[in-house]
């Protein structure tokens, strides 16, 4: 029996498979088209294309967009809500925001219909006092009514349940007695954190996904098992860690950004191995450019995100910033004569003009095609046989060249310059927002298109280098194999540090740790180590924005030490000073939330496994092509990227091609293949 670990990332167009054979130390990658509507067909056929017998697999890790797609396409379940008297519209009222700053257009339809949101008599106050005990007969009546209305999942959403969950607990127990399936949860079970809209929204979206996602995961698990698989099946969470499939079926909302998070995890691992602690990743897709920042080998987590307007998910997620500049973004000239890129996009269907699938307006990809940067004879992805350079050129001339008085070539360069400038802007802004100087970072493109624009980022942002991973097209699948198992917990405390009973905090933390380890134990794998960490969201009294304060509390044999209040105060002061430069005299420190994360470290694989074995530059050389840079055409050497040996030095201009990615090395820059097969791009030394 061999030990094969499989990572599967299901994207919109392709399903990527990364197979690591731990015995032989070899890795294989493949791409198959994503199957629709049921992604499990592509998932299984993809694995089968690399492994004959599922009993050879030890672990299968899945990064999934099933949840994301169901949210974006509004294809979740019909859900019911039972809520506090007077509050049935919280999900619909949001936090009184609007879709767009300018124009005042657009509206919002919540995922739970209004007639499926029922109120019952109950009320808990902010201090946890129960003012009105929950009226269980009306809870049962409401649940029956929701069943009769055809709801297949249900959320119990009560005010202030973060402070005391008794009413919610009793209601949820009553509902579970009569509800025909397991898709029942209360808001305090999903997220015991203050802020009712965010808690209700997260809970309701979880219910909305539960029937669909748990069904999908169960189908996959069954099919794997039927094929002889007896290892662990794990799912990537938005926080960059993995969870067991049972947890995922209960908490599908934690998969909302599963795929992109896995990509960032892989990027961080690759960069760390390559000795680059600070990187900005850039994933260029058809319609967008997704940017994420890793500083000191740590990826940034955000505590909440909006999947779409009004669809707020509060749970720790890898922070990813998106701008509308992808390969399919359309270039156009406005009535004032200014060249713009996007936000309109041709996406992947019909896609760029060069695809010949009906779009006639030029895109960023078309500019790359016209300038010779993409090989028209061998387009990436294998969906189309040949690119129509003439049509792309004509479209650029008509829609951009003519209005600006430029030739098609000049116009194509103009499109790239404007697109690059916007992408560079995103890189600068994510670093500034986090208080970093962008120049300290290296740029790591992944996804199919990013490596065409890496050199431009050096130039535009002033970065020292770019690093292109060996398999940029399957980074997310690789991240699945790398990710640790991680469970996050939160509990709102909301009291002054000196008014807090440390044993109350201790009890919550101990519970978190116990549950975290239980989840790790249930996964049935051996971890190299287990790490528990605690952070508290704290603020001065009167402030609404909090500082996330790391707190070092001893955990011995899964038993948490009781924290001291002095220690908490000191940790706050330290972090506050770091963030704001000074403390507030006579300020009253408050603990808003306490957070625990329990991580099981999975065995790391040696990235050198992926490095090229042998090879020679001469054998990798494929010929030359005319490629346009700046204001002239260059005879440009083309290489088979995967055949280049470790240590190869390739001066620009050059193009390194591999099945799913084109790496561009511009004149004045030089590429080098490092020990892991990554391509590092730097300025040529003069």
């Amino acid at each position, binding site marked *: 029996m061999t030990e094969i670990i499989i990572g599967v990332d299901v994207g919109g167009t392709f399903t990527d498979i990364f197979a690591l054979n731990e015995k032989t130390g070899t890795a294989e990658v493949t791409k198959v088209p994503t199957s629709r509507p049921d992604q499990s067909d592509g998932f299984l056929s993809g694995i089968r294309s690399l492994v004959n017998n599922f009993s050879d697999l030890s672990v299968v890790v899945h990064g999934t967009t099933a949840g994301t797609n169901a949210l974006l396409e509004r294809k979740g379940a019909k859900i019911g809500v039972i809520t506090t008297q007077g509050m049935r519209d919280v999900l619909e*009222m949001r936090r009184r925001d609007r879709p767009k700053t300018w124009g*005042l257009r657009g509206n919002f339809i919540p995922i739970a219909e209004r007639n499926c949101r029922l109120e019952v008599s109950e009320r808990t106050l902010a201090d946890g006092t129960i003012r009105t005990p929950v009226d269980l007969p009306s809870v049962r009546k409401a649940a029956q009514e929701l069943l009769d209305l055809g709801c297949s999942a249900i959320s119990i959403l009560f005010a202030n349940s973060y402070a005391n969950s008794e009413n919610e607990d009793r209601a949820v127990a009553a509902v579970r007695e009569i509800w025909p399936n397991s898709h029942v949860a209360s808001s305090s079970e999903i997220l015991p954190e203050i*802020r009712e809209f965010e808690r209700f929204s997260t809970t309701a979206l979880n219910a909305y996904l539960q029937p669909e996602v748990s069904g999908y995961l169960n189908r996959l698990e069954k099919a794997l098992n039927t094929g002889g698989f007896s290892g662990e099946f794990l799912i990537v969470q938005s926080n960059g860690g993995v969870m067991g499939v049972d947890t995922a079926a209960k908490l599908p909302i934690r998969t909302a950004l599963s795929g992109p998070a896995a990509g960032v995890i892989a990027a961080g691992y690759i960069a760390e191995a390559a000795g680059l602690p600070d990187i900005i990743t850039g994933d260029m897709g058809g319609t967008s450019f997704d940017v994420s920042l890793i500083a000191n080998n740590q990826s940034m987590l955000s505590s909440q995100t909006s999947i779409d307007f009004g669809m707020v998910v509060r749970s720790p997620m890898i922070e990813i910033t998106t701008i509308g500049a992808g390969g399919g973004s359309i270039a156009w000239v406005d*009535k004032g004569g200014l060249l713009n890129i996007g936000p309109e996009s041709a996406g992947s269907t019909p896609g760029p003009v060069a695809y010949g699938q009906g779009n006639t307006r030029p895109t960023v990809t078309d500019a790359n095609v016209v300038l010779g940067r993409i090989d028209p004879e061998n387009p990436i992805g294998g969906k189309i046989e040949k690119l129509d350079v003439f049509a792309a050129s004509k479209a650029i001339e008509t829609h951009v060249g003519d209005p600006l008085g430029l030739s098609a070539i000049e116009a194509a360069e103009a499109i790239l310059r404007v697109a690059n400038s916007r992408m560079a802007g995103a890189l600068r802004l994510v670093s*500034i927002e986090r208080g970093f100087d962008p120049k300290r970072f290296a740029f790591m493109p992944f996804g199919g298109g990013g490596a065409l624009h890496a050199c431009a980022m050096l130039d535009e942002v002033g970065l020292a280098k770019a690093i292109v991973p060996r398999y940029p097209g399957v980074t997310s699948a690789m991240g699945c194999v790398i990710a640790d198992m991680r469970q996050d917990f939160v509990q709102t405390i909301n009291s002054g540090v000196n008014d807090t009973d440390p044993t109350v905090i201790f009890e919550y933390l101990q519970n978190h740790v116990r549950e975290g380890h239980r989840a790790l134990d249930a996964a049935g794998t051996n971890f190299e180590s287990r790490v528990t960490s605690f952070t508290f969201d704290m603020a001065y009294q009167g402030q609404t924005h909090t500082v996330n304060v790391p707190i070092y509390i001893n955990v011995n044999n899964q038993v948490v030490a009781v924290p001291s209040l002095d220690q908490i105060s000191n940790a706050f002061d330290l972090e506050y000073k770091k963030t704001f430069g000074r403390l507030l005299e006579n300020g009253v420190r408050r603990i808003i939330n306490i957070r625990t994360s329990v991580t099981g470290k999975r065995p790391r694989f040696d990235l050198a496994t992926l490095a090229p074995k042998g090879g020679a530059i001469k054998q990798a050389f494929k010929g030359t092509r005319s490629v346009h840079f700046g204001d002239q055409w260059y005879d440009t050497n083309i290489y088979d990227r995967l055949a280049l040996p470790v240590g190869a030095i390739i001066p620009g201009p050059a193009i390194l091609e591999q099945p799913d990615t084109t790496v561009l090395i511009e004149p004045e820059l030089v590429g080098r293949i490092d020990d892991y097969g990554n391509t590092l791009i730097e300025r040529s030394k003069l």
Partner: protein
Amino acid sequence: MTQDIDPITLAVLAGRMEQIADEMDATLFRAAFNPIIAEAHDASHGLYHPQSGDTLVQGKSGLPIFVGVMSFAVKSVIEKASKDGNLKDGDIYIFNDAHLGGTHLNDMRLVRPYFNNGELFCYLASVGHWHDLGGAIPGNYNPEATDAFQEAFILPPVKLVKAGELQTDIIDILMRNTRLPQSAQGDLNGQLGALDLGVKRLDELLSEYGPDTVKSALNALQDRAEILMREELKELPDGRWEAIDYLDNDGVSDTSLPIKVCLEIKNDTMSLNFEGTAARCAGPVNIALPTAIATAYVAIKHMFPNLPANSGVMRPINILIPEGSLLSAPFPAPVGGYTETILRMIDVIFQAAAQAAPERVVANAYGTINALSISGKRKNGQPWVMFSFYGGGHGGSNESDGLNHGNAPISTATIPPLEILEAAYPVMFRKWALRTDSAGSGMYRGGLGATYEIEVLEENGAKAFLFGERGKYAPSGVVGGGNAALNVFSYEQDGGWQNPPMTSKMVGINLKQGQSVRLDTPGGGGYGTPSKRPPENVARDVAAGYITAEKATEDYGSAWQEVTI
């Protein structure tokens, strides 16, 4: 004379300069101490013309109202500097005088000349809402103010930094005039940091492209914005359209105050004439002239959301504000309630524009920010003040029904969660819900307003005051759409529920433990004739409880009753 600039460099520089302003925004949001800036983004940054002070580039994340108003802050500094004749590299001016810089006294403005090789190249400016600047009421929202002195400490433009040297005396004066000096110091440091970053980024940009190229780009962008605006206006029909709406009263005497506009389009120009608007009043619903001009810009930007945020857009537009009207109140008229007045200006501009170009506008939004304060003393003597603004419905458009429970068109601020309010203050929300029958009818109906009912839990009781509007004049529908419901404020007394004599404005309401106040906020106006609304949609609204069966039949006829959904 602008040198010709190639279109590629122009497109790249357009993005680069906008980014400088965005990065300044990001710097302040990150560094600011007070949540009004850090979370509600009540701040803004930009680059301004060295001679005229016109807006060259403005950040995208600040509050909408600042997009028009910042150039007035810069113009005031230019005037002051030319009078004093001592503008130097490394100077930074600071002031909050709303009669010079627009909006209200909480907005602290910092203006810094940017020199390149000894020549004034442009101005950088930063504005941010400070928590407190003295005055009669903490937070400075004083509905009883009859002059600006009762609202807050007033600082005219003075040099905070002289040729690079920080004037600590000025900081001492500022910190002595706020109830929250730590907060103010944090915000000030953030604003200075944002200006520093702007200077650094401009240095980089100018050394990369050369000052002449950047200057040409800035000029070209103004010119192009002007062309864009003219092209948009050319597509609209020529003609004159009028609209009039009213403020309920000024909070001092119960007389309604007309706001009137005459919108005229001639070829590629537009004028907005506010002749016929009420004269200056005693209470705080006056606004300063810069605020009025900026408001017209906000309305125009909502009609043409893709226009760039620079002053070129305003060149084809003539705004006439009559002297002596409440839209150009001189110092020291109180202007603390400016939000209500500018919301009404936007409403009348939309009403007039809807007659000219119905596809360009949406119906009126709820039109009042409903500033509600509930305060008292806890058992241990600790004072508490819960102060918040409340939402309402947005207007319908030619694309969709209006948004339920949105924020005001001049702002992007969100409302705190009720759990945060209940945790911080001795109150309980009995109701936090959409308000049935509050939307204006129409082919596309308005969004729904809200009902908030707030009970006092504190044994000592509490005092409440409200500053709102739309108690007598409802948000208007357009293109045949119906009006939304009026704003209704009620408060509980021993004898039952009562309403204020001045509808939506009242101070000194005494509440006992267990008594409540209740806000029923307006929805948005409807768009298009109600008879054109598909009966299925009406039936669905009835089923959802957005509208009662009686009102549905009254507004839309009985066809919906035949539909099964």
